[in-house]
């Protein structure tokens, strides 16, 4: 078990052996988070999957070419160049299939993924038998091998990661438009095809540098998981990009550190699991779209809707009882409520219980319901809002009076004070006066208290 000093050394990049590895996976995580965000918003997350598999033939062929030219075949820039070229070929095949057949995106991706990977595996096996060179390390591109990094590799990786991040920031506005409304972007004269290709080029760059550290299967997680987790935290693009970069960076940093401390844990797998844990936490707790906050919000809204339905139903019953006289608050039979809406007796009992807790009802005889003072006021306000909206719909939206009740019902619960004032202004020719008697005393501040 490593002690605390060792842990801190690794986490704070003080340890010479692990500094490069931890730093490069952190940078990779940041770049992948940024690029992956656009991929997610474009609903092409699995493109990274297809692309990363498509890089394998390039690795094998680049190795063979370098050996044939007399090199060692293991030079990282050469292998990554090969990977990039075959990744581009994969993307081109995908686009071709999409534009010349009626097969859909998922089939095109699956085709490129499996056929390119098959070719990659076959050619990898072929070059392994090449005389005079050992290709033994090539398979580490599939699972990743962080430990074998030298400083020139690190420079290359951080350069590519930095450039990709920079490109994301430079083309922020264009990518934003492309992701949210590509039809509009095209109509405005933006070169959408070029932007799409640029985005895929960035994905290729990130994938290819990810091959070395986390391997071609797990680099997919780097592209997908942090952006999807970030999506739960916010509804806005720029915060989402920052959070995705943060989550990607943290996963890379923590994962690589953990794996450096315990040698039997492969870095790629640990990084992916850290990212997945962050994803699960975000999915459950994140304020903007997390499961629990959304559930709380929805149940609060449901309670409000139930309350307003109950009070309005009560008010309308009282109205019918009063006939043409002014509505007064008096007990009425519970059975009448059941006929007003499609409540089951059980639902109604639950709603009444909540209303009692909120002081909207007062104790009355067993089969009777009596609104409290505040309940009656709230009931007349809810009914008034409903009627305002109904009148507005009839007057300005040409909805027949016999159908307006339902339409109004869907909107009235979210009417704010400002909207109600607006409705009152629109409907100023109707009689909207609130029945409040005039004050018996002067409301001006008196001169001598």
């Amino acid at each position, binding site marked *: 078990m490593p002690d605390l000093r060792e842990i801190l050394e690794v986490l704070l990049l003080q340890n010479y052996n692990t500094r490069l590895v931890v730093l490069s996976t952190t940078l990779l995580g940041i770049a992948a988070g940024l690029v992956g965000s656009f991929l997610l918003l474009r609903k092409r997350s699995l493109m990274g999957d297809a692309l990363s598999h498509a890089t394998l033939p390039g690795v094998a062929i680049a190795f063979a070419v370098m050996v044939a030219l007399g090199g060692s075949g293991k030079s990282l820039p050469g292998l990554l160049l090969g990977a990039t070229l075959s990744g581009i070929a994969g993307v081109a095949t995908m686009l071709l299939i999409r534009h010349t057949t009626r097969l859909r995106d998922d089939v095109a991706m699956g085709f490129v993924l499996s056929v390119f990977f098959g070719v990659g595996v076959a050619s990898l096996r072929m070059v392994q038998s090449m005389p005079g060179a050992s290709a033994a390390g090539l398979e580490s591109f599939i699972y990743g091998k962080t430990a074998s990094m030298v400083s020139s590799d690190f420079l290359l990786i951080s350069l590519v990661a930095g450039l990709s991040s920079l490109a994301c920031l430079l083309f922020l506005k264009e990518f934003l438009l492309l992701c949210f409304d590509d039809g509009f972007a095209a109509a405005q004269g933006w070169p959408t095809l070029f932007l799409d290709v640029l985005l895929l080029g960035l994905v290729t760059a990130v994938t290819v540098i990810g091959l070395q550290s986390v391997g071609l299967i797990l680099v997919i*997680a780097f592209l997908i998981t942090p952006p999807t987790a970030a999506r739960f935290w916010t509804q806005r693009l720029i915060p989402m990009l920052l959070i995705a970069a943060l989550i990607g960076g943290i996963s890379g940093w923590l994962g690589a550190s953990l794996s450096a401390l315990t040698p039997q844990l492969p870095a790629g797998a640990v990084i992916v699991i850290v990212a997945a844990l962050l994803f699960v936490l975000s999915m459950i707790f994140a304020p903007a779209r997390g499961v629990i906050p959304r559930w709380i919000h929805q149940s609060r809204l449901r309670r409000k809707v139930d309350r307003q339905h109950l009070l309005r139903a009560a008010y309308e019953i009282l109205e019918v009882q009063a006939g043409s006289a002014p509505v007064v608050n008096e007990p009425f039979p519970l059975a009448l409520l059941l006929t007003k809406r499609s409540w089951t007796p059980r639902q109604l009992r639950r709603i009444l219980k909540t209303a009692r807790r909120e002081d909207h009802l007062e104790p009355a005889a067993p089969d009777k319901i009596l609104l409290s003072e505040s309940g009656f006021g709230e009931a007349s306000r809810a009914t008034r809002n409903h009627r305002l909206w109904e009148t507005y719909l009839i007057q300005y939206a040409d909805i027949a009076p016999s159908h307006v009740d339902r339409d109004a019902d869907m909107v009235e619960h979210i009417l704010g004070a400002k909207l109600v004032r607006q409705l009152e202004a629109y409907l100023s020719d109707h009689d909207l006066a609130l029945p409040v008697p005039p004050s018996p005393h002067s409301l001006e501040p008196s001169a001598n208290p």
Partner: protein
Amino acid sequence: MNWTGFDTWIVVIGALCAAACALPGCFLVLRKMSMMGDAISHAVLPGLAIAFLVTGTRASVAMFLGAAVAGVLTALFTQWITRFGNVDRGAAMGIVFTTLFAIGLLLIRQAADHVDLDPGCVLYGAIELTPLDLVSLGGLPIPRAALVNGTVLLLNLGIIALLYKELKLSSFDPDLADTLGYPSQFLHYLLMTMVAVTTVAAFESVGSIIVIAMLIVPPATALLLTHDLLKMLLIAVGAAVLSALGGHLGALVVPGWFGFESTTTSGMIALAAGLVFTLAWLFSPKEGVLTRRFREKVGDPGSLPDTNTA
């Protein structure tokens, strides 16, 4: 080239496995879930690892069970994340399968000292060695892989024959299937289980790269050639068998062209499937890229002038 009985068995096993994959693959492609095959075939790794760690053997039954459970869990988790998290299905799938794969890698690495379960073996398999592992069926020695993949093929064939109407309807119009009272959730998970079980049967013998290719590429080929589900299933199986044959031939011949000694049949089968697809892509009678180009140039073939009377 030196063709032996050995090679015949390799092609037979490859063809059985390819056909077994192509059948459920047709429904995956029609349901726009092609990538599910890829996801499941990666995600079965932890199931296999756990089954292996618990039983300590590579006995087929436990492995099947572990992998089938992992496969169904993949489908289940994807569904949950999609529904409760409001996440795009592709992204949900990507998160689930990469995480499960990572867990599988960790488990295998932890047990590496006393286990000979190699992740590479899961991906490439060793179809070249399968004819060595013989079992006796009615006194006749046949390779175990042929038996396993043949059984899976029959199983898939049986399920599809039995539930043909239900699968067809829920693939083309899931909403109608729902309103008519067909159990479309059950059909979804049944299909996922079929994919998982098929994947495992193939994992042991031929490697999951064939599975991914055979789940997607032959059905896609068939989709370019026909609009009829029954014909699509038949063509997909045909394309799959052709790929297996072509793949093994390629594995024997192609390395020689470049001066190499050998390669894997699995990878070459995927490549052969890709070539078959490319042929259909270019020359499909109705939708081929070249056929269409040709038709645009000379006009509709029906209106060609009759050369005999000219």
